[in-house]
């Protein structure tokens, strides 16, 4: 294809997206579109399955049977959502094994929030309330993204996740209404998870060079800072309602702008965790890699059995 042809295809492609048409896997697409989508969608998928780990740690210790089944179902959902997202990514011509390989070798990233430890039961509340709350803001916007399989996966995920944040908020609420010890536990979890949750929206707009392209492809509907602001504005009253304090001395309502002013994020910490030096980066990867390696003989066995069965069938037919 000549450069002029590619350019005209690209223009037509961008025009389709601008008209709100969806792009489907077999459609022509610019190489950059394919690569960006593989990167973002797999990163999203990896976040789901690494996200199973901190909460998964608490399944065996959940304080009641009701909490235990809710947490199990939630962590399982995350596995399911990872699966939906891997499947959607696979339509772009990459296998799940290759994607795992990228995760296990550190080539692919996942959301940094899961590199923070879940230390108390209240952290399970905070993760559901804040982390899922932040994730939903991002995900709802993605339901209208331009790549069909990604948009469809997001619709299903958003529908299923609607209970996740409620689950977390309910846990936190119960603690906030409980004994002094329980309330302190809830406040401590909020203190530790507040800032990392704000970091989930990514670097400040000024440091986010890909925003314009992502907006065009509808991978983003709003900028990082706009989404972060939306999260703060919706979460502060939720904390106030149950008597918890957001750990930001600079937080105050700005009457003029109609939203909260807030303090500066510790961007050094942000980059440190992104670069792989957060509190749990190594542990999380070790857990994923060992599940994968310990599972190899199982996956091989199932495949070998399937092949033998197939052969038997063929022999019978002959």
């Amino acid at each position: 294809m000549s450069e002029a042809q590619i350019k005209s295809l690209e223009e037509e492609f961008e025009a389709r997206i601008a008209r709100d048409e969806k792009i489907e896997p077999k459609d022509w697409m610019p190489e950059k579109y394919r690569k960006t989508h593989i990167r973002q969608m797999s990163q999203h998928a990896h976040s789901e399955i690494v996200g199973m780990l901190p909460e998964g740690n608490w399944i065996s210790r959940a304080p009641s049977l009701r909490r235990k089944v809710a947490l199990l179902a939630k962590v399982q959902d995350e596995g399911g959502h990872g699966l939906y997202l891997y499947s959607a990514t696979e339509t772009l011509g990459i296998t799940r094994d290759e994607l795992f390989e990228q995760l296990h070798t550190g080539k692919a990233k996942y959301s940094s929030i899961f590199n923070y430890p879940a230390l108390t039961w209240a952290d399970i509340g905070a993760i559901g309330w804040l982390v899922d709350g932040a994730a939903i803001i991002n995900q709802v916007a993605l339901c209208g993204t331009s790549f069909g399989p990604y948009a469809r996966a997001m619709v299903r995920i958003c529908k299923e996740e609607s209970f996740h944040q409620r689950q977390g908020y309910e846990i936190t609420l119960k603690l906030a209404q409980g004994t002094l010890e329980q309330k302190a536990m809830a406040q401590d979890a909020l203190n530790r998870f507040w800032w990392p949750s704000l970091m989930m929206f990514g670097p400040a707009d000024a440091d986010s060079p890909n925003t314009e392209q992502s907006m065009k492809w509808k991978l983003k509907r709003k900028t990082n800072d706009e989404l972060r602001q939306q999260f703060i504005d919706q979460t502060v009253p939720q904390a106030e309602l149950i008597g918890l304090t957001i750990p930001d001395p600079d937080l105050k309502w700005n009457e003029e702008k109609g939203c909260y002013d807030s303090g500066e994020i510790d961007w050094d910490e942000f980059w440190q965790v992104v670069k792989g030096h957060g509190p749990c980066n190594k542990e999380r990867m070790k857990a994923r890699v060992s599940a994968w390696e310990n599972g190899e003989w199982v996956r091989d066995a199932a495949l070998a059995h399937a092949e033998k069965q197939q052969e038997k069938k063929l022999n019978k037919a002959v």
Partner: protein
Amino acid sequence: MKKEWPLWEVFVRSKNGLEHRHFGSLHAADAEMALENARDVYTRRNEGVSIWVVESKNITASNPEHNAELFEPAQDKVYRHPTFYDLPDEIKHM
């Protein structure tokens, strides 16, 4: 061995009376496992009464590059639609 379980497409009938609809895909070593996995992955919330699975490689898909010749010719065959025909106003339903 280092081989991946093949990819399967999953179709689910939500309730009797409705058609099977494409729900997504998954990996499984064989058809039986694909059915079980589909049940575990795609019907956790009571979404189905019947499941079809088909190995993805067995699906033949049309090529979007041929869309013009495949689908556009149908666009101007308006006489296939009821609105093409003029009826007197007195006839309310036909």
